[in-house]
């Protein structure tokens, strides 16, 4: 059985040189996470986690009794065959999230993955997310305002309802797309910003709601 790609955690091509140095994780307050937890505790929700499987996050979410789907988007993007083109299109995202037809999510944990999609990719992905979410569904996303971001997405660990641990997976950096709020809503058609928090460490947290 070899259904897990060994390339899954590797960097995408455009990220340039990757070093093995890993920086100590940082703990940051998360205002959007606190707001999201308020939502999750109300009833049993279907949650889509687009990050890698992190045991402590599963344990944290288990207290809410939600149904959690884990689909590692970055690993899927990284394991694309060379002939599949530079950009991931609608077919890729449809295949990536090929779930039972009646699957609808109430919460999507996108973490910092929007920073690792080209703008066209983000638009295509949002179309797929729109098909898989209920009206009122929330997307939790973090967008960097720094000039550079780590070459691979952070691994986020939920420390508690108000704090996230940012774990760098590589010491190498890449340019940040620096998505402005208007760009985020422009690319994510069908979603609007419900809440947004600019944090001291240069990260804008979003809770986007499906219209």
């Amino acid at each position: 059985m070899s259904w897990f790609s060994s390339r899954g955690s590797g960097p995408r091509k455009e990220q340039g040189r990757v070093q093995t140095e890993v920086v100590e994780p940082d703990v940051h307050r998360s205002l959007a996470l606190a707001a999201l937890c308020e939502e999750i505790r109300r009833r049993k929700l279907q949650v889509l986690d687009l990050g890698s499987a992190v045991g402590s996050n599963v344990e944290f979410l288990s207290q809410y009794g939600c149904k959690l789907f884990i689909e590692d988007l970055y690993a899927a993007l990284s394991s694309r065959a060379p002939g599949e083109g530079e950009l991931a299109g609608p077919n890729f995202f449809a295949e990536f999230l090929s779930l039972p037809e009646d699957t609808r999510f109430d919460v999507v944990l996108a973490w910092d993955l929007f920073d690792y999609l080209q703008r066209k990719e983000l638009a295509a992905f949002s179309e797929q997310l729109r098909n898989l979410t209920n009206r009122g569904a929330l997307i939790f996303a973090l967008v960097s305002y720094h000039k550079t971001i780590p070459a691979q997405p952070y691994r986020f660990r939920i420390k508690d309802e108000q704090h996230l641990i940012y774990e760098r997976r590589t010491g190498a950096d890449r340019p940040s797309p620096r998505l402005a709020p208007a760009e985020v809503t422009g690319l994510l058609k069908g979603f609007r910003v419900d809440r947004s928090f600019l944090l001291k460490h240069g990260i804008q947290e979003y809770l986007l709601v499906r219209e």
Partner: protein
Amino acid sequence: MVWKKSDDPPTQHPEPTPAPRPMTASAPTPSPAPMSAANEPPRRSSTNATIGPSIFIKGDLSGEEDLVIEGRVEGKVDLKQNNVTIGKNGRVRADVFGKVVIIEGEVDGNVFAREQAILRQAGAIRGNITAPRVMLEDGSRFKGSIDMEAPKETGGNASRHSDREANRPEATGVKATA
């Protein structure tokens, strides 16, 4: 001299027994701290039935004792009252039912655990997990969904949006809305 019947049990000095390691199904704490030895479920017992690495079973498995699978199984593993361990060499293409299900090998199928499902670092699951408690060790591979039963009733189905508006927390940081 008045003989008084003692209420105390007869003095005995039984062999000290180690405290049982609980396999609790209670709600976990949100802390990401690793499980201590005290509340970690048992890994193996010498009384387990074992399917060895060279064994291949095609069909349904059921029984009333704990089971360790180090070989290959295709079909269904149904040990709802007992613990099931898929060992490092275990390759299971089946739905697995158990009390505590521990995966160190590979499972292609759904896992149903009455108390807890544990995916160890070397383990991999492609399928859905249904259990009140789920533990994924870092480095483990998982693709599918995790259905965790709610530990308690959590409110009604009131309008989520209106509740959200009413309970909007005060932001102490800079708030920007597109």
